C-alpha cells in the first residue's frame, strides 16, 4: 500500500487507483454508507455524484481523475489493473493455499504468502482509502459482495495465525470494515455470519491465545454489531468465560475482553433484556462473585460502572427490580454497599428516565425500584 502513496502529490486529487475511473460515473449513490469512522467525505461524495447528476460534466471530471490515475497506472498496476473482485478472488485462492500448505514444504510458499499479504493490504486500502485517497462506495460494495459470496471470511479467520503481524492487522481491519458494508442496503456480513455462527467460537477462544487475542477480539467486537450474532454469543457457553477473560493478567487482552463484554451487554437492548431475564441466576451470581468482589481494582471499577449501565437501562427495568430484591433478601454486604455507594447516582439516573405514560408496568417497576433504593438508604443509616 505505501507504494500507492508514491508519486501522489500532497493535496492532489484523490485517487484510488485505476479501477476507479470506470467507477466514478456509476456511483450515483455517492455515499458509501457504512464506513467506520464516518462515510465518504462530503467533498468526495460530491465529486463522485457530480458526473452522474450532470452527464455533460463527466468528461471534465474524468480528466481530473485521468491526471492522477495515469501516473498511478504505471507504478501500481503495471500491465494488468485488477478489480476489487479480482483481488478478493486471488486472496481467497492464496488463503486456501495457506490453509492447506504445511510449513515451508512447498517451494513457492514464501512467495505466495508475500502475495497474500500484499492483497490483504490492497483490500484494506480499497475499504478505507489511504492517507491520500478516499474509499469509493461502488468498489467497496463489489469487494464486499465477492468476499461473502464464498467462504473468504472463514478462510481468513482460520488462517490468521499463519499470517505475520502486519497481515494480521490488515486482515482484522478488513474484517471489521466489512461488517459495516451495505450491499443493496443489506448488511450481507450479518447474513453470512448467521449461517456460519461457529466462526464466533473461534474468535472468542482467541482470548486464550496471547498472540491472537487482540486481533480476534477486534473482529469479534465488530461482528457482535449484528444482533443475531450478539444473541448467539450471549446465549452460548462462551459467555461464562468472559468473567475470566476480563481478569486475565495481561492488561491489553483483559481490557479488550472487557470492551467486548460491555458491548455484548449494552448494544442490543431487547436481546440483552431477554438474555438477562433468562439467565438471571447464574449471570448475576458470577457477576457478583467474580467481578464485583474481584481483588482487581480495575475489574471492580469497570464492573460497577457496567452494572449501573445495565440496570439503569430502561429496557432492563424488570431485571433491576429483581436484582435489587435479591440484593435486599440475600444481603450480600458487598452488593448492598455498592448500591448504597452508588445510590445517589442511581436515583439521579432513575429520575431521568423518560416515562412513557402508557407504560404502567414500567411505572410500577420504577416505583418499586425507588422504594428499594430508599430502603437501602434507610438501612444504611445507623
Amino acid at each position: 500500500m505505501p507504494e500507492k502513496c508514491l508519486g501522489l502529490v500532497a493535496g492532489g486529487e484523490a485517487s484510488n487507483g485505476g479501477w476507479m475511473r470506470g467507477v466514478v460515473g456509476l456511483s450515483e449513490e455517492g455515499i458509501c454508507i457504512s464506513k467506520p469512522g464516518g462515510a465518504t467525505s462530503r467533498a468526495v461524495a460530491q465529486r463522485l455524484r457530480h458526473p452522474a447528476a450532470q452527464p455533460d460534466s463527466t468528461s471534465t471530471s474524468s480528466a481530473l481523475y485521468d491526471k492522477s490515475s495515469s501516473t498511478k497506472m504505471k507504478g501500481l498496476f503495471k500491465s494488468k489493473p485488477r478489480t476489487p473482485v479480482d483481488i478478493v478472488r486471488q486472496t481467497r485462492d492464496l488463503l486456501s493455499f495457506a490453509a492447506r500448505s504445511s510449513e515451508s514444504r512447498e517451494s513457492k510458499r514464501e512467495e505466495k504468502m508475500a502475495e497474500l499479504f500484499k492483497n490483504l493490504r490492497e483490500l484494506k486500502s480499497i475499504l478505507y482509502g489511504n492517507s491520500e485517497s478516499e474509499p469509493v462506495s461502488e468498489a467497496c460494495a463489489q469487494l464486499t459482495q465477492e468476499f461473502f459470496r464464498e467462504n473468504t471470511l472463514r478462510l481468513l479467520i482460520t488462517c490468521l495465525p499463519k499470517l505475520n503481524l502486519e497481515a494480521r492487522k490488515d486482515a482484522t481491519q478488513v474484517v471489521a470494515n466489512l461488517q459495516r458494508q451495505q450491499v443493496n442496503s443489506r448488511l450481507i456480513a450479518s447474513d453470512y455470519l448467521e449461517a456460519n455462527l461457529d466462526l464466533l467460537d473461534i474468535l472468542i477462544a482467541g482470548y486464550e491465545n496471547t498472540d491472537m487475542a487482540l486481533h480476534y477480539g477486534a473482529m469479534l467486537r465488530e461482528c457482535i454489531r449484528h444482533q443475531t450474532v450478539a444473541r448467539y454469543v450471549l446465549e452460548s457457553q462462551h459467555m461464562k468465560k468472559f468473567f475470566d477473560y476480563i481478569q486475565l493478567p495481561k492488561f491489553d487482552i483483559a481490557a479488550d475482553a472487557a470492551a467486548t463484554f460491555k458491548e455484548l451487554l449494552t448494544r442490543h437492548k431487547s436481546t440483552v433484556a431477554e438474555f438477562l431475564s433468562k439467565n438471571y441466576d447464574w449471570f448475576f451470581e458470577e457477576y457478583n462473585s467474580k467481578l464485583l468482589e474481584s481483588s482487581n481494582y480495575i475489574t471492580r471499577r469497570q464492573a460497577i460502572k457496567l452494572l449501573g449501565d445495565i440496570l439503569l437501562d430502561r429496557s432492563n427495568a424488570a431485571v433491576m427490580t429483581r436484582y435489587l430484591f435479591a440484593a435486599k433478601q440475600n444481603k450480600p454486604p458487598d452488593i448492598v454497599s455498592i448500591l448504597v455507594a452508588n445510590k445517589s447516582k442511581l436515583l439521579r439516573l432513575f429520575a431521568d428516565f423518560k416515562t412513557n405514560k402508557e407504560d404502567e408496568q414500567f411505572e410500577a417497576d420504577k416505583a418499586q425500584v425507588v422504594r428499594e433504593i430508599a430502603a437501602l438508604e434507610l438501612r444504611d443509616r445507623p
Partner: protein
Amino acid sequence: MKPLMAYEQEGHHHHPKVQFPLDSDSYKIVDEIGIGVSAIVYKAECIPLNSTTVAIKSIDLDQFKVDFDNIRRETKIMTLFSHPNILNAHCSFTVGRRLWVVMPFMSGGSLQSIISSSFPDGLSEQCIAIVLKETLNALSYLHNQGHLHRDIKAGNILMDSNGSVKLADFGVSASVYESSSGYGSGSSTSSSPMMLTDMTGTPYWMAPEVIHSHTGYSFKADIWSFGITALELAHGRPPLSHLPPSKSLIMKITKRFRFSDYEDSINKGKSKKFSKAFKDMVASCLDQDPSKRPSTDKLLRHPFFKSSKGSDFLVKHVLHGLPSVEERFRVSKILRKNDVDDDDEDDVEGESGSELVKQRRISGWNFNEDGFELDPVFPTESRDDSVVKQVRFGGETIILEKGTSESSLNLNSPEAESSLVSSTTTPPCEEQQTENTFNAETMVGGLMALKKSLDDQRQKVSELINLFGGEVMNKEDQMAQLIEKLRMELETERQKNFELEMELEFLKFQISGASNTDEND
C-alpha cells in the same frame, strides 16, 4: 515501502518474543526518570530476566474517570505496532490502582531532555537529519496503519545508547479507522472518514487545523507537528514557546505564522546557518494548508534526508558525555524545587510539573537571526507573561557552582507523560544575562563533576531542600490549592445532594401515593 517490507519479513514468527513477567515483584525499581500528571516513569530491572533494564510507566488509573478506552488503545498500539522506530511495550498489567507498562529502557532519554540539558541552542543539522529521518520512518508506518500520533515533539522522541531513535507515547494517538464518531453509531454520513475533530496534542506543536478543529484534521496535522519538532531540534525549543500555551493565543499565533516569508530573513542570519534543503523541508511541513504539506513518504524522499548519516554519528555527537537520564531527571527535580522558591513565581506552573518542558529563555538564542523566523515577538518583551523558564544557579544554589551559574538545566523526562498533559510548565525568569550564551562543554563538565560527587551532592541537595524549605513550602502551596479545589467540589456535591434529596422526597411522595392506591385496590 522498502524498509517496511524489510522488517516485515523478519516478522514475529522467527524469534519468539521474550515473555516479561506480569507481576510487580519481578521488577526492582532503580530510579525515577520521569513524572507527569497521571504517571511516573521508572528505570527498573526485571529480576527474572537477568535483571534486564526496563522503563516502567506507572499510570494512576484513578485519573481516568470515565473508562479505560484510551489506555486500552494505547497499550494495544504498543503491543501491535512493530517498527524499529516505534517504542513497544514488553507488557502491561495492573498493580493495585495503577497500570504498569513495561517498556525497553531508552538510556538517552528524550530529545527534549537532551537538548535542554546539553544543546540549548539546538542540535547540528546533521544530527537533526538523522533524528528526523528515523522519526519519519515511524510516522510513515503509523500513517500507513491509519494512525495519527497527534503529539509529535522532541519530548516524545527517545534515543537509546546506540543512537537508535524511537517514537513514543501513544496516549493521545488515534486511528482514523475507528474514530469515536463512527464507532457505535453505525453509519455516519456526516463526517468524513480519515478525519478527526477533537483537539488534542500539545499546543506549541499543534497544527492550525487542529486548533480550529471545526473542519477536522488528519494525517497532515502530524506533519505540521513534525515541522515544529524540526524547529525545536534546531533551536532548542519550539517556536513561540515564550508565549503561554492558551488556546486563544495559539489561535492568534497560528494566524501570524508566515512561513512563506521566512526566506526574506535568511540573509539576516548570523548565528546559525541552516541549509536550503532543511529550510525547504521545514517550510513544506508548515504550510497553512494541510493538503499542501507533503505526506511522510514524500518527505522521506526530500533531499534533506538524502545523505543523512547513521546512528553512530548520534552516539558520537549527541550521546557522548551526556549525563544519564536519571541524573538529568534528578537535577531537573532539584532545579524545579529551587525555582519554586523564587518570589516571582508564575502561576503557569502548579500541578503541571507534568510536562517538564522547560526551556531556556528565548533571548539565550537568536530566533530572528537564522531564517527560521516565525514571528516578530521578542523574548525580552515577554518577561512577565513568559512561560519560558530560566532556572538560575544563583547564590542560593550550590549545585554547579563554577562557571555555569546561568546555565539552565531544564530537563525533561525521557518517557515523560506528555500526552496526558496539555501545557508546558515553565515559570518565568529574571536577571537574564543575554550575553551569556550557553556553553555545552561547561555544562557537561559541570554535570560530570556532579556525577562524580554524587553522594556528596545528594547530601547537599537534601540540606538545600531543607534550607529553603522547598519541599515543605511547595507542599503547603499544593495543599492549599488542593483544599480550595476540594472545597469547590464539596460545594458542588452539596448542591447535587440537595437536588437529589428533593428528587427523593418527590419520589417518596409519589410512591406513597402509589402504594396507597395499591392498598385501596
